[in-house]
Structures are given as structure tokens and as C-alpha cells.
């Protein structure tokens, strides 16, 4: 009973579970909150980066004694601070700076974490041991303290330096996360299969393992990004933040440490606080949606 498979067309009624962007898009369409967040975030970013091109930072941080602590008015939409500087301008530039800072910290830490996580997870063995020891070491460090010490050590305290210092301490979590995922991915047969057909290790890492951890990375990235916005505010409060000539959301929020400002001059710190809140929330909601899209089990039925 020789049976021959003929043309397969009639059986190609395959399981078409959607992949990649279509899943994400479907998730966003389902989750109105995430979609709204995406729109809000997009609008904020476009308008902030757009406006900040027009705004003159020097002009905004210019001290003007004639308009100290002015409440919101038509000339100063959100009033001024104790240096007579326009809060609205600072809010825009500050949002831009804070977002940029958060963005780059996230990028750097994730890239670093990704590289180390991939290497440790893929090669395993002593490479993994070494990387894990390093990660454990960093995890046991009193991060805030060391960041403060670092901040006092750097000669020039600029956004770049700040990003670098923060990144130095924040990559470990990502490396751990990615490592454990890569570790389990590397045990899957497709890696062995690629080895068997003679694909070199670096190529396996880049073209096989990486795409399979990408959804995790994207999710981690967004959620980190939310956490890293306004990350400088705490340091500003303690007196180790960015100079005021580089406005940031943290600086604006920190003005609230003056009780007079906190109680009577809401226009100075409230908008920045709301901005942090809105940015964080919307990024978070987007991240949650991405997470659901990446993890079939959590997908909303």
C-alpha cells in the first residue's frame, strides 16, 4: 500500500498564530488604555522635542529679577521660579532632558545587560560564573551611596556623565534577566541544530538567540524607561543633581523641598510632578501591553 503524498495544498489550513507586530498591534487595539498611552506619549515627545528646538535654553534659564516667583500669567504660562525663570520653558526643556537621560540610561544599561547576558547565558560554564559573580558583586553594592560618591568625583557634571554613572550601576538587573532567558533559550534544540549545521557561535547568538529574547528586551526596555524618567530627581534633592542651567524634571520637582514653594507656589513643582506621572504611567501601560503581547498566557481573552 504505497501511498504518496500529493500536493499539499488541501492540508495547508495551518495554524496561523499571528506574530510580531500584528500581535502587538492587536493587543493595543484591545487595550484602550495602552493605545491612549501610546498616543499621549507620542504627543508629549513630539511636542517636547519639537518645542525645545524653538525654545532657547539660555533664554529660559536667564535670571530675571523683575519676575521672581510670578504666578502663571500670559507671559509666563506656568509662572516663574525664584530666579525669575520661566517654568514652562524649563518644563519643556526639563522633560526633554529627563526623557533623554532616562532613554539613554535605559539604552546603555539594556545594551550592556544584553551583551553580557547573551554571552553569559549562551556560553555558560566559567564565562557565566564570572559574569554572575560580577553581577552579584554589583547587586550587593550600596548603589545610591556610590552614585553620590561618583557624582562628587566627576570633574564635569553633565548629562552625559550622569547617564554614564547611573548606567554603571543599573545594568546588572537587565543582565540577570536576559541571562536567565538566554540560558533557557540556549538549551532549546534550535541552537544545537544551528551548531550542527555549522553556524558559528557569534552568528547563532545574533541571528538565533537574540531575536528570541527580543520581546523580553522590548518589554524590559519600556518598563525600565518608565522607572528611569525622573531618576535624577532624588539626587537633586540630596544636592547631587544636575546643575540648574540644565533644567530637568528632577530639578523642578526638587524645588518643592522649600516649604514655601511646596505650599504656596504649586505652579513650580506640580506640572513637573504631573509630567513625571503621566510619562511614567503611559510608558508603563505601553510596557504592560507589550508584556501581554509577548507572553501568550497573559494575553487578555
Amino acid at each position, binding site marked *: 500500500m504505497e501511498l504518496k503524498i500529493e500536493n499539499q495544498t488541501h492540508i495547508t489550513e495551518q495554524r496561523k498564530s499571528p506574530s510580531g507586530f500584528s500581535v502587538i498591534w492587536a493587543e493595543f487595539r484591545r487595550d484602550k488604555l495602552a493605545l491612549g498611552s501610546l498616543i499621549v506619549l507620542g504627543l508629549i515627545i513630539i511636542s517636547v522635542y519639537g518645542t525645545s528646538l524653538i525654545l532657547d535654553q539660555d533664554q529660559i534659564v536667564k535670571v530675571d529679577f523683575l519676575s521672581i516667583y510670578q504666578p502663571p500669567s500670559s507671559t509666563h504660562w506656568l509662572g516663574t521660579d*525664584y530666579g525669575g525663570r520661566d517654568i514652562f520653558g524649563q518644563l519643556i526643556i526639563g522633560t526633554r532632558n529627563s526623557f533623554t537621560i532616562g532613554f539613554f540610561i535605559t539604552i546603555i544599561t539594556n545594551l550592556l545587560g544584553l551583551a553580557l547576558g547573551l554571552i553569559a547565558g549562551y556560553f555558560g560554564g566559567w564565562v557565566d560564573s564570572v559574569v554572575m559573580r560580577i553581577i552579584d558583586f554589583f547587586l550587593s553594592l550600596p548603589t545610591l551611596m556610590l552614585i553620590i560618591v561618583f557624582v562628587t568625583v566627576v570633574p*564635569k557634571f553633565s548629562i552625559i556623565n550622569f547617564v554614564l554613572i547611573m548606567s554603571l550601576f543599573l545594568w546588572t538587573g537587565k543582565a540577570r534577566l536576559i541571562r536567565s532567558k538566554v540560558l533557557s533559550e540556549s538549551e532549546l534544540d534550535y541552537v544545537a541544530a544551528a551548531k550542527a549545521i555549522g553556524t558559528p557561535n557569534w552568528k547563532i547568538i545574533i541571528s538565533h538567540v537574540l531575536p528570541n529574547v527580543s520581546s523580553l528586551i522590548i518589554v524590559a526596555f519600556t518598563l525600565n524607561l518608565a522607572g528611569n524618567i525622573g531618576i535624577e530627581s532624588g539626587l537633586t534633592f540630596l544636592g547631587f543633581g544636575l*546643575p540648574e542651567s540644565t533644567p530637568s524634571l528632577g530639578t523642578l520637582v526638587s524645588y518643592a523641598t522649600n516649604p514655601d514653594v511646596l505650599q504656596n507656589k504649586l505652579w513650580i513643582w506640580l506640572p513637573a510632578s504631573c509630567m513625571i506621572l503621566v510619562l511614567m504611567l503611559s510608558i508603563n501601560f505601553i510596557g504592560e501591553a507589550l508584556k501581554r503581547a509577548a507572553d501568550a498566557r497573559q494575553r487578555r481573552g
Partner: protein
Amino acid sequence: GGDTKTSTTTKQIDQAAFPIKVSNNKKSISGGILKYGLVSDTPFEGILNTVFYEGDPDSQVLQFFDEALLSTDENYIYDQDGAATYKLSDDKKTITLKIRDNVNWTNGDPVTAEDLEYSYLVIGNPKYTGVRYDSQMSMIEGMEDYHNGKAKNISGVKVIDPKTISITFKEANPSVLTGLWTNPLPKKYLGNVPIDKLASSDQIRKAPIGFGPFKIKKITPGEAVEFEANKDYWNGAPKLDGVLLKVVNPTIATSSLANGDIDIASVSADQYDQAKKLKNISLIGKTELAYSYIGFKLGHYDAKNGVNVMDNPKFQDKRVRQAMAYALDNKSVGEKLYKGLRVPATSVIPPSFPKYFDKALKGYTHDPEKAKKLLDEAGYKDVTGDGLREDPNGKPFKINFASMSGGDIAEPLAQFYLQSWKEVGLDVQLLDGRLHEFNSFYDMVEKDNPKIDIFAAAWGTGSDPDPSGIWAKNAPFNYVRWVNNDNDKLLKEGISAKAFDEKYRQEVYDKWQELVNDEVPVIPTLFRFGLDGVNKRVKGYDLTAGQGFQGHLQDITVTSKESEKNK
């Protein structure tokens, strides 16, 4: 200026804005506890001894239970009203102190001449690592030998009888009447603690004693000290039952004043708006022994030879310096930024020395036109047409400005200076684009970091009017590295024996102030008010006499049991 005029000027400045003492017509109650707020964002260190303490918080604790033997008048010159009286020898080199009989340590021991000698022996001891061994100390006869371990005693410090002591200097110097060390150490109490262990000993940290109007009842490390009245105080038992000193975070100082948590606390400029609205406190103020300035780095300190060398060509033309001074509007800074708590400085001797402050000096008032003219004259013109001046050779003229962080106002102030100079066409940039934290700032300034062209700083002058420590040719603290023959001559004259003649000394210092004003090695920018918020139940608090509570602490009373609240 003459002395009479000077003092009126001082009064004008002081009283223009704030009363110098509280006025309270209510009837005092007997006893009561005064709550004193030590405004600091960090706890006090707890080195509760005049010889060893370093931070200001500790000195605020000290003032309640310890004092110097000699008290000062409003010019910070020693008078005869303190726990000891003094006599100056005819050659002015020897000063003899006689301690009153009823001056006793709070543990009952009498304060003796040996106690004072002991404090000299401690400060001069090679093992002493504090900061009190200063230039005046080394002027005492035999002190250097003792300090270098060549002698067991200081030949210039002689105990004549248990209550009398004399101190002899190598040269006559009028500073003896303002800067002489008169804080004794309770030798008997501390005697068997080795000198290098003193600062950490329990006698100083846990149970320190003094001979002031109050004595320590309980120390809660870092946060509070409870004092009780020292009934045996030589100047009469204090009227209060005690004082409670509490560390108060600057951000909440005003709020604490408002709800009566504390009775007295200093008020900073950023809290002033709030504080002045409070109905339960009165604000009293006084100019401090300090001035802010902007200095030009004119050279460097040659440490090997111990002299300043004025070799930086950048600001040798004094017209540039003057122009930069004219460019600044210090009046607005004081009024707007500091809410009137600071006033434009006209000299490098603050008005808190009524005798020596040269009120005739006008200083540099805001005059951008004049600044521009001076710069034009000096050849600094804008040849490229970008609004910024080039140097006489047509090269870009860039100035790096170093300024300190700290306090809320530092940043806009620095920005304002930059703006002001820009208006007259000078390209001044903040060094490294940011304010520098205290330590880094002084590290760079002290080491003559070549990146610094000009810098903003402040001097606390101490109560000795002699400016040599900051201005002499060989002074390492002459941060601007200004070297000038007239300057050296005048400084010498100011502390010569002749200068014991007040009139003469005033003239010398007037001349000196004019010289500095004309040469502008530094631009004096602001004099500052120290402002205290005082609860309305406090009676008798007065800043006129000497420093702080000195001399009248025992007379302060309260007029109600509880502090008044702002309701």
C-alpha cells in the same frame, strides 16, 4: 571715615531693615525653658569644646555653657565686663588677665590661670590637630619653641597667681585686643587625658563643662542638648530654668517657628518670604562679620618661597577689573534675590566693624555704560561683531568663572553675573558648566587651578579687623594673588605698635580700603544680614552686644509658658 560717622552708618544699615533686639512689653514669667533651634541640615558633631570644635553647629551649642574670659564691645574689642579683666603693658607686648573670684566651672572647681595656660599648652602642643594654632599663637613668646618640642613650657605664658596670668608677644600688635585666646580648659577635669585623645574623650563629648550661664543636662547625640540654669554663674543666675537646643532642618525651620516648636532660629533668604508672614515671631537682624566677593586670579602662590607671585596677564589691566565691577547690579541681587537680606558691599572690611569700615567708600555701583567705556579704553573691543569683546590683540577674550554651589540662590546668582557681564560684552562662562561643590571649589582655588580666571567666594573675617591673613604678600589665603607694595606697607602699619592708637589705625585702614577699592583685586559684592526669627514670648534677646547671646543670656526671659503659635 571717623568713628562716629561709622557707627551711625552701621546703625543705618542694621536698622534700616530689621530691629537688632526684640521688644516685648509683656511681663516675664519666672523660669521657663527657651527652645533654641540649631538650623542645620546635618547634626552637630559633638566636639563641645572651644579648643577643639570646628563646625558652626558645635559652636552654637557651646555658647550656652561656655564662654571666653574676656567679653567684647560692639566693635569686637575686649572690654572689662567679662569673667576676667585685663591690663596691657606699656610696651603693649604683654597682656595680663585677672579672673574674677566667683568664676567657677560648673562642676564647682574655680576657673584658674592655670586653666587658661593649659589651653595654650594644648593648642601649642605638636599633637594638637585642631585649627586654633594660628599666626597669632605663634607670635607668643616661646610658643614656637614649645610647638617644635624644644621647650616644655611657653615662656610667654606666665601664671602669676591662681587667678592671674600674663601673655607676652614677640611684637606689639593691636590684634591682641581682638584676637587674644581667652578660653580656658578645665585642667583639673581634663588633666589626665592625653592631648591627642582629648577631642574624643568623654569629658568633652559626653559631659563637657564650662562656666557659662547654663550647664548641660542631657545630650541626645546629633539632635538635641538640654541645658539647665547654672545658678552659680559669675554674672548672676540666669532667669530661665533652662534651654532646649534642637537641631532643625533648614527646610522646616520656618514651619517649626510657626508652630512654636522652637523659639529662636536663624532664617535664611529662601525662607524669608514665609517667615515674615508669621505673626508669632519677630525678625531681628544684624550684619555679619563676612562679605562676599568676586576675585580675579592674578597669579599664583609660590609655596617654596612662601610668597604670592602676580604673573597672570589676563587681568593685569585694572580697568578691566573695574569694568567688571561696574557691570554688576548688586543692589538688585540683594533686594530681589536675597529679599533685602543682603546689601551691596562697598569695602572688604564689613560694617560690622564700625570703627574700621570706611563708610565714605561708594564701591562700584551698577553702571554698565562706564564699564563699557573702561573696556573700550583698555582696548577690549568687539572686532568680530558678535557682541562679545576681543582682547586688545583681537583674540577672543574668554573668562572662566568658578562659583560655589550650596543654598538655593547660588545658581541664579551665578547666572545673573554671567548675564551682567555679557551685557557689557564680556564672554564669561561657568567653569565646567556647573557650580562647584564647596570642597572642589576651594581645592581648585587654593591650588591656583589655571582653569579659573575669576571666582566668587566669601570671607568670614572673624572679629579681628587685621586683614593681613587674606591680603599680605606672603599669605597663602591671598587667593587672588594680589601683590602690591602699598598694600604690604599699609597692612604692616595696621598692626604696628603705633596702631594701638585707634585713630591712627582707622586712617591706615581707610587708606588701605581705598587702595583695594581702586585696584579691585576683588569685587566686594554683598554684605549679609544674619536674621533670626524669635518667638514673641522671648524677652531680652539682643544682638547688639558682641556675638550671639554673649553677655545677656542670663537676662533673657520668656513671657509665657508655651511658645506662641501662628494661628
